[in-house]
């Protein structure tokens, strides 16, 4: 038997869930400042969105891709702006380090967008810390596909590129250089 009070409580729960989904969607829709083709949700750096009281202050937890990633500050500013535009009275963005971000946190949609934008997405599978311990450095193999022509004949130009999260490669087929989102 359903009491009127129970129905109201369920309606409240439904509203709260919708509100939570909305808040997450708004915060997650912010484009990455350095790779604006993907959103923070797709990059997987948004850890938690928490409303302290109904339509009250909101706390957001954000994790950096690399410890020194300079984009974190502008991500925080953008999240705050977007939530305020949706009527959130107070926003506090906190940077959390644990558990560490991994390229496995990038969504399939995020990978597709990176590739469409000319950035080879990270290969699947978590990099194993200490891999190659026994045999020295692990050379990056040629399994990385050129985002321009699709060739797998690509080679490493530089292990570091325009941002901390990317390496620079060259396609041996079409000769175009391209960025590769390196696996961590």
């Amino acid at each position: 038997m359903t009491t009127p009070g129970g129905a109201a409580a369920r309606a409240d729960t439904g509203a709260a869930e919708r509100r939570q989904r909305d808040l997450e969607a708004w915060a997650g829709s912010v484009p990455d400042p350095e790779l604006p083709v993907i959103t923070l949700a797709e990059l997987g750096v948004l850890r938690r969105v928490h409303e302290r009281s109904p339509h009250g202050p909101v706390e957001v937890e954000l994790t950096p891709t690399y410890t020194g990633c300079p984009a974190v500050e502008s991500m925080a500013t953008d999240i705050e702006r977007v939530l305020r535009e949706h009527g959130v009275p107070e926003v506090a963005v906190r940077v959390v380090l644990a558990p560490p971000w991994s390229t496995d946190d990038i969504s399939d949609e995020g990978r597709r967008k990176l590739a469409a934008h000319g950035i080879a997405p990270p290969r699947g599978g978590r990099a194993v810390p200490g891999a190659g311990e026994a045999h020295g450095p692990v050379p990056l193999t040629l399994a990385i596909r050129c985002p321009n022509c699709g060739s797998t004949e690509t080679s490493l130009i530089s292990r570091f590129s325009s941002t901390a999260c990317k390496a620079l490669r060259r396609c041996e087929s079409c000769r175009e250089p391209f960025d590769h989102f390196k696996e961590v």
Partner: protein
Amino acid sequence: MTGSEGLSARSAAALSDPLLPLADDSLVLSHRLGEWAGHAPVLEEELALANIALDLLGQARALYAELGEEDELAFLREERAFRNCQLAEQPGGDFAHTMVRQLYFSAWQELLYAQLAELGQPLAAKAVKESEYHRDHAEHWTLRLGDGTEESHARAQRAADSLWRFTGELFEPIAGPGPVGEVDWDALRTGWTERITRTFERATLTVPESPQEGAWKAGAGRQGIHTEPFGRMLAEMQHLHRSHPGASW
């Protein structure tokens, strides 16, 4: 004079925290690497050194923010209040010198962070992957230079020899509460020595047999005793903040 006169009470309390030496290592080496901007032999290395510097700066900032007020800790301490190892403060020298310094440091930091990650230190769990990448990069260059031309080999060997006396300090235990106090420093030394020996063998370099410490007792940097070039590095690093307190852009 303790070199910490300008600090707030919270930042001053950080001076005895066992995480401070690790933060200082990262900040100081980050600055040293930044000195290569505009001087690296090729553009790719310019990016690489700046990227490594950025990772290290991020590590330092995360730790400082946990310990006290980060600008105060970076810019308002005198030489004697810095706890970094002397290896980190050594000037860049030539490219081989910078790469061997990086190899010695990153191989150590990777092993240290791996232990700290196991002990539940949150920054280490994140940064160990960065250290591994830095060490890998430095290893590549050590192999290229050591097993390269007569000139590059001579320079790499000279760097290996001259920086050797700063490596003993890396294994002096840092005492204090928390994960750093639980590190197994002997295991760290063993792992590091194996790693360096293996890399040098492949690079046709000789592992130095000279002492791993100088005339001073190893561990001096951890007590605030630094080598002569460090004061000048700090003067350059802190000049802007001290001349224009609170400046921003």
